[in-house]
């Protein structure tokens, strides 16, 4: 539902004026980063995950889908009964967990990045329309957002699966659709406040078309908010993929994903802890890192937060 604030249309993340001078931004970012060791750690972890995903085929010790049923549920190498060839142990089908985690980074990153991109693009577009044109356009889009929030997520996922079939692409569509509202509202609120500002008024006065005004003058000014939301949302999307798997609506089981592995491991949590713990750790670290980076970005990009 809309809040009072939506109606009033206050700026939300403080980027009320034209984008700050870039040099200052970098300096502030660096200063924050030096003080904020956690953010630095987050950046390092994220970089590591991206590298892992890129180099998966070189890093993985085994084919992530190679099964050896006779060697299923082997503990990690250092535990009794473990094998040196499977350093983090094997899963319920005798597949190498380390290799699956390494390959899984690809899908988890892919899911994180693309869902956020889909949600962001959709949300920004609708938010821009809503805020810039106001009136019935605004009403329709905002009511749509409200409906979406009251709509059961499981049902949406089921519907997409029933109509489009299961699979990675459709999971991204589901998650993308569920995520747009956040962007939509923020962008709308910012546009509302920008609409009456001098540089937008000026652009309108010299006869720029709406699309130009939105693209050249408005969009850059909401970009920082978008980046911040996106980094914070990415972790949530990666987790949502796992939740979908729990509800039986996930990605093809033959594609290794952290969420899928974690979910497979939930029946082994009391005895074969390694099946879910390692993918869980990978997921946790990545989400943690993207949240840390998100926080840092917010502190940096949002001048009202500077000390």
């Amino acid at each position: 539902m809309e809040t009072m604030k939506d109606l009033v249309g206050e700026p939300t993340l403080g980027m009320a004026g034209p984008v700050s001078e870039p040099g200052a931004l970098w300096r502030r970012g660096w200063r924050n980063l030096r003080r904020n060791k956690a953010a630095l750690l987050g950046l390092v972890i994220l970089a590591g995950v991206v590298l892992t995903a890129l180099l998966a085929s070189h890093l993985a010790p085994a084919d992530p889908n190679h099964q050896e049923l006779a060697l299923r549920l082997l503990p990690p190498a250092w535990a009794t009964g473990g094998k040196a060839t499977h350093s983090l142990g094997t899963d319920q089908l005798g597949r190498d967990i380390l290799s699956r985690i390494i390959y899984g980074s690809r899908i988890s990153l892919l899911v994180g990045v693309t869902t956020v991109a889909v949600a962001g693009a959709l949300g920004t577009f609708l938010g821009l329309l809503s805020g810039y044109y106001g009136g019935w356009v605004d009403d329709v889009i905002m009511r749509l957002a409200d409906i979406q929030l009251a709509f059961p997520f499981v049902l949406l996922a089921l519907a997409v699966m029933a109509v489009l079939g299961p699979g990675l692409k459709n999971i991204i569509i589901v998650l993308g659709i569920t995520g747009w509202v956040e962007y939509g509202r923020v962008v709308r609120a910012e546009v509302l406040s920008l609409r009456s500002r001098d540089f937008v008024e000026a652009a309108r006065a010299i006869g720029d078309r709406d699309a130009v005004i939105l693209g050249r003058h408005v969009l850059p000014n909401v970009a920082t908010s978008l980046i911040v939301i996106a980094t914070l949302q990415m972790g949530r999307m990666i987790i949502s993929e796992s939740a979908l798997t729990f509800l039986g609506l996930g990605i093809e089981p033959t594609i290794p994903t952290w969420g899928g592995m974690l979910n497979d491991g939930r029946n082994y949590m009391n005895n074969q802890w390694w099946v879910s713990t390692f993918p869980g750790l990978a997921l946790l670290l990545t989400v943690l890192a993207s949240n840390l980076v998100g926080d840092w970005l917010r502190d940096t990009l949002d001048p009202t937060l500077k000390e």
Partner: protein
Amino acid sequence: MKKVLIGVLILLMTGLTLVGCGGSGGSKDTGGAPKTGPAGQVVVAQGVDATTMDPAMHAETPTGNIQRNIFDSLIFRNKDMKLEPGLALSWKALDDRHWEIVLRQGVKFHDGTPLTAKDVKFTLDRIINPDQKSPRRSNLEAIDKVEIVDDYKLTVTTKAPYPILPGRLADELIVPADYVKKVGDAEFAKNPIGTGPYKFIKWVKDDQVVLEANTNYWKGAPTIKTVIFRPIPETSTRIAELQTGAVDIIVNVPPDQVKTLESGTNTRVSTAPSSRVIFIGFVANKGGPLANAKVRQAINYAVDVDSIIKNILLGNGYRVASPLTKAHFGYDPDVKPYTFDPGKAKELLKEAGYPNGVELTMDSPNGRYLMDKEIAEAVVGQLAQVGIKVKLNVLEWGVYVKKIMAKELTGMYLLGWGNSTFDADGTLYPLLRTGQRFSYYENPKLDKLLDEARSTIDEQKRLADYHEAVKIINQDAAWLFLHQQRDIYGASKRIEWEARPDELLWLYDAKLK
């Protein structure tokens, strides 16, 4: 502000206590009753709650399991799935289409009304009546009419010869005619009375169904006083509840947890061969590689079913060579499973015209059957070894069933089939007869045999037909035959109770140590 905050907290707390009061209090009174009558309490955890207490208005095992303790059927199945007298003392075929049923005398419903033929007629008519919209109607579709001969005798007439009628009757629970008519369907579905060993006490939806011993039961009073059924959907939680002693019997234990429960100080495991057969079907009637029997045979040779049973099910399954298990009427011990022979599989593929392998899709449910998704994944992995590339889709059950019945499947599909009549007809007809709900296979020779066998009550003739049918199905590789499931239950060591092949949770025989 602090005050406001404290105010909010107090508000929340009061809210909590208020709703808390509305909840069901803990129900932990064990023992205490005199030693003579039924005593003690047993808690059974299934995956889902009952949907109704009216036996006519559902077709689900978990709901039936609860009702089986409240109601009786005319005919019982013993531990070995042989039919034996229940509310009916005897049943016999008078001719092709007429059956005579004689009722036990002196049986009383929980409200004291005696059971008579009128209740039986009412029960069966009610299910058959289209206006009742009973989901069970298909079970009794074959019945033409039910007639009362006297208070304790009825005749059932079928539309055509229907040899499996006694098996069907074993699944229908008898309800009290007068009571149902008096209180109406809606009330009966909430407050049932039956003739069974346990009386219905209360039902807190999605939380618990509480039953209490019927001391006037016609077989004698049960030994356990209170039985509580609780729905616990998550497997790990069910196991945790058994381990902590909050629950005494749990269903659907994954094979990998067997060792844990067996080594626990208070827990044990009970297993039973299920009537459920797990298989991977082929969409053989839409052209493509799977229309070719050689490809289907190749797939049977390429999959190491024994290894799947040994490693994934940890032995909790029995290899099958056909859709039938030993317990089914029509089973042919001479039909043998395919051997594991990847070389032969490759050869057959070459003969079929696919020397470079084929690409297929496979659909599977997840969590519907014991280790279903894992088995599907293992099959996909093994088929890859002989050049059959399979893309596996895991579908939500409702979507899956819709696809199957709309005949939208392509490629292969994993399915399990339980057959409560223990007769070949209940498996072969719906799954392999051309045009049936679950059939993606067309074979006129097989159709003829199946049609013939279901319309005669001559047992010898039927057996011969089914033996012939099973041979065809095996040789033509109508499916990738996998295994018969073994159901695994967890139980507390304080209770004497054993699992049954028909998934029934019958607490009458259970005893507390």
